[in-house]
């Protein structure tokens, strides 16, 4: 187990190394540079050159890369060109929002998707089955940002049930500790702040959950249908076990294996969807900031954020693989 984790983490190093080279070259090839973003089209060549020198962009690319790596080893990702703050600080301030949103979406998707997929499989061919299969097909085909707009228009602008933007009501003056607003609220016992942050998460969470929900429903349904035909379910029935035990211990447990795999793979898509959802709901996560950083050519931010996201993605999949080996004893992590 430990060896497996260590090996997977070691494998991460060449991946990150390659990714950083790729990104480095790629970003430097983007037309324009931070000087254009700072000065606009009017700056004199001298001013441009001064800024480039200041940022160390006039040096050969190899030296720039070497400096980047040297800092990276000390876990220093440099300073943002546009906000003049440490990239790590920016990240720690914004990423919690995205994580909260992604986790909310995942909780909604799993919480609804697994029971719905299970029920659809048990009532195969009935209306609930048709409804959930049809619904999941449409769910996959709706553009996330459009769904986000519709939800916002209906539930927040027309019905006024949910807030239409932001992460929390700023007038609450909530204390910040981790920047996970819900967590902060719970830690400081500011219950209203926690509830308000949670309230702000529901609509964007629902929009972001649509695609994972659809996928989880489909996979759960297919997987349960397959497991229901397995011999060991028949054995369990032959033992006279109650329906509840058969369902929980024998059907669901085995049906969860493919679902667990798919959840790991969904993470990448969730982060993409989060960028769009955050934009619609003016939700301050990494989404809008990243989009801005691209147009501002804020190299340190782009490099840092993308690298950290890649690490997070790999770690999530590592955790999924580990939990997989916990549910399925046949899979031995080596």
């Amino acid at each position, binding site marked *: 187990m430990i060896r497996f984790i260590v090996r997977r983490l070691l494998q991460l190093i060449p991946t990150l190394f390659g990714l950083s080279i790729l990104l480095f070259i790629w970003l430097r090839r983007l037309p324009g540079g931070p000087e254009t973003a700072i000065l606009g089209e009017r700056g004199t060549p001298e001013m441009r050159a001064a800024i480039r020198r200041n940022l160390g962009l006039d040096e050969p690319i190899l030296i720039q890369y070497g400096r980047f790596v040297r800092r990276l080893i000390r876990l220093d990702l440099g300073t943002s060109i546009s906000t003049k703050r440490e990239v790590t600080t920016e990240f720690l301030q914004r990423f919690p929002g995205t994580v909260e949103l992604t986790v909310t979406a995942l909780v909604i998707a799993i919480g609804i998707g697994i029971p719905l997929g299970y029920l659809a499989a048990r009532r195969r061919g009935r209306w609930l089955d048709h409804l959930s299969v049809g619904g999941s097909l449409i769910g996959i085909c709706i553009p996330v940002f459009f769904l986000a707009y519709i939800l916002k228009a209906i539930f927040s602008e027309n019905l006024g049930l949910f807030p239409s933007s932001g992460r929390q009501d700023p007038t609450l003056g909530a204390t910040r500790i981790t920047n996970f607003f819900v967590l902060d609220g719970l830690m400081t016992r500011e219950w209203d702040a926690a509830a308000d942050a949670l309230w702000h998460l529901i609509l964007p969470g629902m929009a972001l959950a649509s695609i994972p929900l659809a996928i989880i429903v489909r996979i759960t349904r297919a997987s349960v249908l397959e497991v229901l035909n397995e011999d060991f379910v028949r054995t369990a029935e032959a033992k006279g076990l109650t329906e509840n035990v058969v369902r929980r211990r024998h059907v669901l447990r085995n049906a969860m294996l493919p679902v667990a795999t798919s959840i790991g793979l969904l993470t990448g*898509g969730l982060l993409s969807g989060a960028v769009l959802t955050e934009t619609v709901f003016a939700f301050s996560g990494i989404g809008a900031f990243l*989009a801005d950083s691209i147009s501002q050519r804020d190299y340190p931010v782009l490099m840092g954020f993308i690298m950290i996201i890649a690490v997070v993605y790999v770690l999530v999949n590592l955790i999924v693989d580990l939990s997989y080996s916990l549910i399925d004893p046949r899979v031995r992590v080596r």
Partner: protein
Amino acid sequence: MTIISGKKREKIDRLAELAARDEERGVSLWQDAFRRLRRNPAAIVGAVILTIFVLVAVFGPFFVPYSPKDTMGIREGVVRVGQGLIPGHSAEHWLGYDHQGRDVFSRMVVGARQTLLVGVVATLIGLAAGAMIGGVAGAAAGLGGRWGRWVDATLMRFIDMLLALPSLLLAVSIAALLGPSLTTVMIAVGMVSVPVFARLLRGSMIAQSNSDYVLAATSLGVRKSKIALTHVLPNSLAPVIVQATLTLATAIIEAAALSYLGLGNPDSALPEWGVMLADAQQWLGIRPALAIYPAVAIIITALGFTLLGEAMREALDPKLRK
């Protein structure tokens, strides 16, 4: 001479027979799949949607009543955005005007062609690049040896790298590199599906080369390169074709997302549904239908591709075939 037990010999005989029949099996696989596809109502619905879509996309633009960039509504003073005036459907303008006074129906029809173009080209880019990487990796893994394994591992590391990036981020950075245009969207969306195709083709090639009939062909003394070309590749293609159909759906949706982030085609003469949807977001308060039309068109088209792709997957699934 080695002694082969009766049971084993029997197995080899059976496999050899299978391999000999493989040619005809290959044909009947597709015929069988097609027959089952025709019986599946979901496939029929998907095929009908796609036929209409393709017909409109190919021939529609020749018959549109107005030019998609003609801002006649503003010229004639019918559309006054400042006063919240964007007229809806009428006898002359079936779907009304957009915020710049252009005929929405004409734009939708021309948009169908652009959307189809984006979807197809993006998928082809992803398919070509992905199949090349995956095919080489799969063949290398199949050949084995130190070199084969090295090539396979290197290519797969590269693919892992692409996968470690959220797809939209990848697309956005490509789009930023190339500047907003239709080509940008195609390339960016195509790149996102490269790792998917690469992994799929590699995986199914490895699975195929470990299969019984390849063992049989090998035991009959067929050359490795010939096995790869005549047996492994054709049989690995089925999942790739299914994936391509499904990717067409996601490509159209992702293109819309890129347009929404302002990276779509700015050329108003060649509207694309994604751009239309993105533009319409601003006017939701005045005329939500402007967003509804392209959104519904995108959803239905994506649904068509998904239905057909899923039905094809089912039809080609060996587990369900009997």
